[in-house]
């Protein structure tokens, strides 16, 4: 952005005390601190990619080309692509429909549904797959992967869409309806369009998460690039070749990102002010109540009932092996600590990047923001090894396998989840309000705290919860970076599951689900409260 004319013409200005300068001169300038903070975040998130490039170079061009262009690659590519497309589409439909019903209709028991619909995100995919695969034979391969993954990740669409429907300006719907537009048309032309950014953001997350998924596909016997990368890690002792293959994932996620960018277009949705988010009288469902309720019941049964049921079954059916020294409360506490830590860090780190992208767009800044999405499609092992590599080389293994290092690893892995939540809500907080506040003599920081963040509140909470829920189920990076001797719910579940001690593994799965229900519930209540406050 060019220097404002006032500055350009009057030469170097004497340093003015903060807060008293002319607002007009500062308005157009992007704060340097914001750019610096965003660049620092982007640099941190680029570490895994840098690691991949360094390692892949070590593998040599001939090895890399041989690996990437062998016969298996075509099969893996086809498997990965078709699964990503089908599951992303299904998640978009289910997530958006569920969000609309919960947020905009008189759905009976909507507070409970609001929690139940989110919880499946926190059930480890390997638990979901295990539950399904132990019930029905057909849950295998492609169809199995579609069912299991859709049910496991649709909340990634639901959460941002629900947040955005909460915050959207209902005035536009009212206007449309008063002009005689039908309900359906209003839904498609106004409501969906308002939520479009959130839907696309959710889909982007789903697609990237699918690219990096491993545990579920391993159980379902479905081969993708990521399962192949894990094979490479585990059979060949060759980090270099595994990293070379991971670069293919990076290319795939670039394609996904570009696709999302194209679909998003330049549409910008804003609303007239914070108070515009008053709640519309919810739509009456009328005769549709029973079918809609049945749909929610079915979704909950499939996404929640199957894994929970399988876990309970195993508690009673499993044998009586025992491992000592493992405490369920201890593992629960560790899990909550890591999830909470990473959630907080990511929410804070996402702010500058989101602010920059939303308030001061420009291609370089957008590029910077988009680049941070790449980590989501990288397998956790890659990110953990990257941190291990850099601390060994450049930091004398300082803090290696410590709590801060592990939390940092989670923060890197799940940063894009936080970014989507924060960005979606910042996009709805009109910049003009900030400007008004600034013109009234408020400092930048004060505006950020009192105006911007308050408007972005629900998005921040959603960001925190998304990261928290993802950390609860993370396994592969955890095993590499967790302090020795410490267990999370996921690692302990894994230990038992590896041991075929399903009876002992099951309680850990159930506690994981219970732990995840807490933020989901808080999130639901939080939305409710802010809605009432705005009424």
């Amino acid at each position: 952005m060019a220097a404002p004319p006032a500055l350009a013409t009057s030469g170097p200005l004497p340093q003015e005390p903060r807060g008293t300068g002319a607002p007009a001169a500062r308005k157009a300038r992007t704060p340097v601190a914001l750019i610096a903070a965003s660049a620092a975040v982007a640099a941190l998130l680029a570490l895994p990619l840098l690691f991949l490039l360094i390692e892949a170079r070590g593998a040599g061009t001939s090895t890399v080309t041989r690996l990437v262009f062998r016969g298996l690659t075509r099969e893996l590519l086809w498997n990965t692509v078709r699964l990503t497309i089908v599951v992303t589409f299904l998640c978009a439909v289910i997530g958006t429909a569920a969000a609309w019903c919960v947020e905009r209709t008189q759905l009976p028991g909507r507070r409970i549904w609001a929690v139940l619909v989110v919880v499946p995100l926190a059930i480890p995919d390997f638990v979901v797959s295990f539950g399904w695969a132990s019930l029905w034979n057909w849950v295998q391969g492609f169809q199995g992967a579609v069912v299991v993954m859709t049910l496991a990740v649709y909340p990634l669409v639901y959460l941002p869409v629900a947040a955005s429907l909460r915050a959207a300006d209902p005035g536009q719907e009212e206007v449309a309806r008063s002009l005689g537009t039908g309900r359906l048309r209003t839904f498609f032309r106004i409501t969906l369009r308002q939520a479009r950014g959130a839907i696309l953001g959710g889909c982007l997350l789903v697609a990237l998460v699918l690219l990096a998924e491993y545990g579920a596909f391993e159980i379902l016997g479905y081969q993708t690039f990521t399962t192949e990368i894990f094979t490479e890690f585990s059979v060949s002792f060759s980090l270099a070749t595994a990293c070379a293959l991971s670069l293919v994932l990076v290319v795939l996620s670039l394609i996904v990102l570009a696709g999302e960018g194209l679909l998003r277009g330049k549409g910008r949705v804003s609303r007239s002010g914070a108070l515009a988010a008053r709640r519309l009288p919810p739509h009456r469902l009328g005769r549709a109540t029973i079918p809609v309720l049945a749909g929610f019941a079915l979704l909950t049964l499939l996404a929640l009932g199957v894994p929970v049921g399988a876990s309970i079954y195993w508690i009673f059916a499993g044998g009586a092996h025992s491992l000592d020294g493992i405490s369920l409360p201890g593992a629960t506490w560790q899990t909550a600590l890591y999830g909470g830590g990473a959630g907080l860090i990511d929410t804070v780190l996402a702010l500058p990047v989101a602010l920059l992208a939303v308030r001061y767009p420009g291609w370089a800044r957008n590029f910077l923001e988009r680049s941070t999405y790449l980590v989501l499609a990288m397998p956790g092992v890659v990110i953990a090894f990257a941190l291990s590599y850099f601390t060994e080389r450049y930091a004398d293994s300082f803090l290696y396998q410590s709590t801060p290092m592990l939390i940092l690893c989670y923060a890197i892995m799940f940063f894009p989840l936080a970014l989507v939540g924060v960005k979606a809500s910042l996009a709805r907080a009109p910049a003009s309000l900030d400007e008004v506040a600034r013109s009234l003599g408020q400092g930048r920081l004060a505006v950020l705290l009192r105006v911007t963040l308050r408007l972005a509140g629900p998005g921040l909470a959603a960001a925190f919860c998304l990261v928290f829920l993802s950390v609860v189920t993370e396994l592969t990076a955890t095993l590499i970076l967790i302090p020795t001797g410490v267990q999370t719910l996921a690692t302990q579940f894994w230990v038992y599951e590896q041991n075929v001690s399903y009876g002992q593994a099951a309680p850990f799965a159930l506690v994981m689900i219970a732990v995840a229900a807490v933020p989901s519930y808080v999130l639901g209540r939080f939305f409710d409260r802010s809605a009432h406050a705005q009424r």
Partner: protein
Amino acid sequence: MVSRTTSSGPPRGGRKRYWLPAAAVVALACGLLAGCGGGAAGSSDKSITLYSGQHPQTTQALVNAFEKKTGIDVNIRPNDEDTLADQIMTEGSHSPADVFFTENTPPLEHLQELGLLSPVAPATLAHTPAKYNSPQGDWVGVSARVSVLIYNPALIPASQLPTRVLQLAEPKYHGKLAIAPQETDFQPIVTSVLHADGKTAALSWLKSIKANAAGHIYPDNETIASQVNSGRAAFGIINQYYWYRLRAEIGAGKIHSNIAHFAPHDPGYVINVSGAAVLKSSKNQAAAQKFLAFLVSKQGQEIIANPAKSISFEYPIASGVTTMAPEMPLAQLRPYPITFGELGDGTTAIALMREAGLL
């Protein structure tokens, strides 16, 4: 900054609601860090870190007895053994690992080739028959398993099972065979076939078994065991102890499968050894060597021998201890004659499996 003190705003959104939890998390993190740092820094041979790819219950039983006997604390770090090997390589001279305990020899052989292991004390090596130790002396054999067929008699009668591993390639087994090519237990069989019949034969054999196992290519031996037992696959290759473990977990009443050995000295008849080594980078060499010595001592071996203690079902191989599990004694096994040096780190087998499209 006039605004910080205003606290009458609505509760939503304000950053301050995060300060308290943030402070709590930071404080806790520092506390934990201090705790861990203290533990790791005390390198006075009072505690060691064990990177373990062995089954957790077995490891736990052995570690408990060792701690009780010596007063040395053992911090166990479980993970897939190949990932642990990758990790040790990445960690280099800073590796926190003192001892590496694996289910199979290839990761140990690989680290040995890279010069990352310390020689094992000769007295420790002497407890285990030389054929089960590293020829170079950098790792010691702790326990053993043997590759077998698991089959479901309702789907394939014992009389129709192959007795030679090459027969797995016959078209009549199409749709019946289950394999887990990613498992470290599978590579030694491929290396044996390669050793016995040469590269061309091994490659076409791999291609045929890939076709025969279509739809039944599983990630691990546990899955093969449970799938065959539940009738979703007719038979598969596993190591014998997975069947015993499955039986212990689900109860003999739910076992609908059985195991069968290959013909004596067939390349499919392979003994896999679980071993342990001390890392060259370890700052607790003495304590680490003590742990290795314990693993192959009579006390350690008796824990492995007793499934009630270790749920291991592996064969003890050192100090003259024999298994208490109801299975064919180790001395009666007739494996294919191949040394661990010849088994190596499995890279040739992996290259071949990749060529056949199995990996």
